[in-house]
């Protein structure tokens, strides 16, 4: 009986651990959001977007000309050309404040702020 009780206890603990992992993963997935930056009229809208690490930002080009979303930090994110009607997405990984611009149109500038997970 003692052996059976131990087995039962081990089984319960294992199930609990599995449940915790599952809940944790689920919570993490639920927290990750997707943000949209619209490119129209030669502007990024909104001009500043604040996200949490792990979130995804999608740039949607509604203009009739191609644009890029390119971090001013060397080696940072760079969409390269986003065709009219096209889009590009980026998962924010490192917290920080990133200014970015369209390399084709230097007057188009905006900011992406990535915060640490709360």
């Amino acid at each position, binding site marked *: 009986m003692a052996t059976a009780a131990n087995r039962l206890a081990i089984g319960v603990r294992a199930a609990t651990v599995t449940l915790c992992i599952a809940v944790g993963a689920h919570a993490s997935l639920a927290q990750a959001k997707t943000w949209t930056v619209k490119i129209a*009229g*030669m*502007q990024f809208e909104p001009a500043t977007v604040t996200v949490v690490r792990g979130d995804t930002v999608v740039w949607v080009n509604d*203009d*009739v*000309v*191609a644009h890029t979303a390119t971090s001013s930090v060397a080696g940072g994110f760079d969409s390269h050309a986003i065709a*009219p009607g096209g889009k590009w997405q980026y998962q924010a990984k490192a917290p920080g404040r990133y200014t970015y611009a369209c390399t*084709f*149109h*230097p*007057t*188009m500038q905006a900011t992406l702020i990535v915060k640490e997970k709360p």
Partner: protein
Amino acid sequence: MNLKPVPKLALLTALAVFAFNAQAQSSAPTDPQIAAIVVTANQVDIDAGNLALKKGDSKDVKAFAQTMVRDHTGVNQAATDLVHKLNVTPEPNATSESLKKGGDDNLAKLKTLSGKAFDKAYVQHEVAYHEAVLAAIDKTLIPDAQNAELKALLVKVRPAFVAHLDHAKHLEMELNGNGG
């Protein structure tokens, strides 16, 4: 005072005459005529941009030229798609012909230049060209366009011309600052 003869006169004259005629005769351009003006205006700048890609001196001028070719090709694609959809045939007219001639004259002048002189002349014309086209868009093309989709397209492309003008003016200052 820095008054110099500028190569923009032909283009400005074409658009000014156009605006004047439109008012004086109360004969606004038709949608097929507006379509021809839009396509020609874009093509003129694509041609100048392609020449600048070959003959331009500075990296910034070449990058600007590449953007002009890319953007005006994009605008023309949108315009061409729309006229096909609307089953409109662009109708050449005095303004589109003047724009074409102004563009050809500009190319002929630019072909005689090289180095920094080319860059300055190209960029100076780009400033004048975008100022003139913006004036035409605001005073004639948008107000006179009858079809709602054509009017909407003109409204949609206007910010690109504004951004190009700002970019060209910035380059002009940069070139004058660097080379006197």
